[in-house]
């Protein structure tokens, strides 16, 4: 339905554009007055007038009409005030399933009535949408076609619209950030209304179960974020322990020792590691690395969990190698030639030049890159979701299973998602924390790079 309306709108805009094009062309051909804009601009202007306002209306209508109709239907169900949010959602999905005819058992009479009402309202809503959109388009077309005249500055009008579009596009980035912050803060605030602030930030137990019955023993759940954060840092540190030495060393080899031919062949191969989707790494961690780590743990006599922190951390580290490597590469390449040559002139070997001069000079860049990589490791999701544990444990043993912030977010939000219990809302509190931590790390990293690079 929606797609058909959009298609019709596009066709209408095209027709109006074509008419305006010919009208403007005729004006030019008559040559009575000098026509300000070329016919194509008149056509574009008419198309914009026909299509854009109606399109914007359709967009807004499409986004909000569904929830408005649902609200109206629900408000007319008798006894709705007594129901909780979850029950309302359940009822609503029952009603809409009935309306679509997907029923397995005979629906209750009240539901049938509501479903009839829903269908009726949806029909009205769609009819209203078509009528309003059509009248907006007709009005726009009429106006757009009428203004075609030799003195009308169609080009200016089109360019103004394009500028507005571009301005709008560039604010979307800001709106995304605002959307992230507002939605996370809004849901997290609902969470902190249920779970006290200090319990979340200083609690040492993370057991996000929800009581099925109110009187259940140990059904309260505990929402202390410390063990989750601890596990995140353990895994991210393991990842960095793999990624930093290997990344920096391979960057050193590629920039300083390797022949151009080897470099041009090895660097793209290394970059492939960054292009592999993380879900694939996750599968590899589970399939191959985790059993290896378990065997290693057993042979060391420690014993290892099947989803050890080491397996997830090591695979994540490998994923981050190209990132560290390319940043170190840039940092090393940015060191002025004179410093390198000065070092050689004093008789330093290549190795001494690298470790004592180049690395020292490039250190701010590398440290900034490592911080960015750390923030990437903290925010990485699929590898840990598949290979790390679910139970929050405070342990430094890399053969044990720990959990991370991202694992918990995914675990809390897959399955049922009603936004009314601390379990799902906790995911948003975790998300807010993750957002702030990564934002902080990124800002510090950028600051480090900018502040210390100025010296050369």
């Amino acid at each position: 339905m929606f797609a058909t309306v959009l298609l019709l709108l596009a066709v209408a805009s095209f027709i109006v554009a074509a008419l305006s094009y010919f009208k403007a062309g005729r004006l030019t051909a008559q040559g009575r007055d000098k026509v300000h804009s070329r016919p194509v601009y008149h056509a574009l202007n008419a198309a914009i007038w026909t299509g854009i306002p109606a399109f914007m209306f359709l967009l807004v209508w499409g986004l909000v009409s569904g929830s408005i109709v649902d609200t109206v239907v629900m408000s007319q169900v008798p006894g709705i005030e007594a129901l909780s949010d979850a029950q309302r959602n359940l009822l609503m999905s029952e009603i809409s399933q009935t309306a679509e005819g997907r029923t397995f058992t005979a629906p209750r009479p009240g539901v049938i009535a509501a479903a009839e009402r829903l269908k009726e309202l949806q029909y009205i809503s769609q009819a209203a949408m078509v009528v309003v959109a059509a009248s907006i388009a007709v009005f726009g077309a009429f106006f757009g076609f009428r203004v075609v005249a030799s003195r009308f500055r169609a080009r200016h009008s089109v360019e103004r619209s394009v500028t507005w579009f571009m301005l709008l596009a560039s604010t979307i980035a800001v709106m995304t950030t605002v959307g992230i912050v507002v939605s996370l803060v809004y849901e997290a605030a609902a969470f902190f209304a249920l779970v006290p602030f200090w319990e979340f930030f200083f609690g040492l137990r993370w057991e996000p179960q929800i009581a099925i019955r109110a009187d259940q023993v140990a059904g309260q759940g505990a929402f202390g974020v410390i063990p989750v954060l601890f596990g995140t840092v353990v895994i991210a540190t393991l990842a960095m322990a793999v990624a930093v030495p290997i990344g920096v060393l391979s960057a050193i080899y590629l920039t300083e020792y390797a022949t151009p031919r080897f470099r041009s062949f090895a660097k793209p191969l290394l970059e492939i590691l960054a292009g592999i989707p993380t879900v694939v790494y996750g599968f590899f961690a589970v399939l191959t690395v985790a059993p290896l780590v378990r065997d290693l743990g057993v042979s060391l006599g420690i014993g290892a969990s099947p989803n050890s922190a080491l397996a997830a951390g090591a695979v994540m580290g490998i994923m981050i190698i190209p990132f560290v490597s390319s940043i170190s590469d840039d940092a090393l390449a940015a060191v002025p030639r004179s410093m390198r040559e000065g070092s050689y002139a004093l008789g330093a070997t290549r190795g001494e030049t690298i470790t004592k001069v180049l690395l020292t000079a490039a250190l701010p860049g590398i440290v900034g890159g490592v911080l960015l990589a750390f923030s990437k490791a903290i925010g990485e999701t699929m590898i840990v979701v598949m290979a790390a544990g679910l139970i929050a444990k405070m342990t430094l043993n890399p053969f044990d299973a720990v959990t991370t912030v991202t694992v918990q977010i995914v675990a809390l939000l897959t399955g049922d998602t009603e936004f009314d219990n601390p379990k799902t809302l906790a995911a948003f509190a975790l998300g807010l924390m993750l957002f702030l931590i990564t934002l902080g790390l990124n800002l510090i990293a950028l600051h480090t790079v900018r502040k210390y690079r100025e010296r050369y």
Partner: protein
Amino acid sequence: MTDISLHQGAGAAPGDRVDWKSGTMAARRKRRYGADSRLRLFGMGAIAFALGFLAIFLATIVHTASSALTQTMIRVEIDLKEANLDPNNLMEADWRAISRDAYRKLLPGVGRSEEKDYFSLFTNNGQFLIRDAVIRNPAMIGQTVTVVIPMSDPLDQLAKGLFDRALPEDQRRVNDIQIDLYDQLVAKGVVSHPFNWGLLFNNDSRFPELAGLAGGLVGTFYVVFVCFILSFPLGIGAAIYLEEFAPKNRWTDLIEININNLAAVPSVVFGLLGLAVFIGWFGLPRSVPLVGGMVIALINLPTIIIVTRAALKQVPSSIREAALGVGASKHEAIFHHMLPLAMPTILTGTIISLAQAIGETAPLLLIGMNAFITSAPGGMLDAATTLPTQIYIWADSPERGFVARTSAAIMVLLVCLMLMNAIAIFLRQRFERRW
């Protein structure tokens, strides 16, 4: 100045000439060069480790996937003459009995006590496969037709030699009776191992032998389509505005900082945004490609903006100035001259960013695109999975047969990524201009 005082040069008091040929200095030189070659060795080791991992990784995936490339199938003759089918009500016919009759005819010697084991050699959904074949082609009614259906997963594993027949019976998923029956079927020549087209053309299923990627492929296509439709025009618009039109003020600085920061926000946070805003507030349905595409578009947008700005910067300003000089407006100079010249670079960057977007999984999990769906989505608003979420679902499934299927799905995903990158490289080499 030839006098060099060295801190470590033993025997070289300040003011003395250093005897470079002395044993201590030779040892010192050796040590220094040793350190140099050690560093070089470490560097080589690091690269060898990374590339070795890549090789092992690809080899493991290809090796594991290889067993999913074929599927053990069995040819069954079905007598539809006796079945007494009502052409108007094919769905309701007793397909279970029809299929079991056909199985019995295939190997007449199977005793009553062995029947349960025997029927489990065939895929659990065999009756429905037969039903669908007849519904697709009603001309079959009243004839004896041949249908090829998959064998069940444990038998598929047996046929591919993935476990040892010599194992004790309680340690394998196929018992002795089943192995014996299977061997009899092989001897009759009804078992075949064709290429596993079902992997690409079937939808998801609980049974590994029937599970395929069709739904995931279609879902991925829709998601990437929505992502492209949204992020490409918006990204180019934003980039042109910021690069060419924006006044230098606090507001545009804010936008720039924002874009750089957004590029580093973990993708799972975008998933939370999609869940809270698109699904929670706007009331869009869960698990649908439209929402998935919108979320991925937001993740993709900063990349496209950054790529487009870099591409516009590369176009020499003489192009713009020449256009302005002959009377073009600023918009005309950009849209008629600079943008077309920058387009190959922009497209290359966009395709590479879309290849990244295809692999995006975590935000799609949060908006519910990991649901179990047994039909390909018919549109943007049908519940769907994508390739990476399908990989995630299969990787989580306990059945042995899904391990190979997951690897095969990964290979399909990697082939998609390789194709996209190849297109990008082709575009770059064919059309990109060096100024």
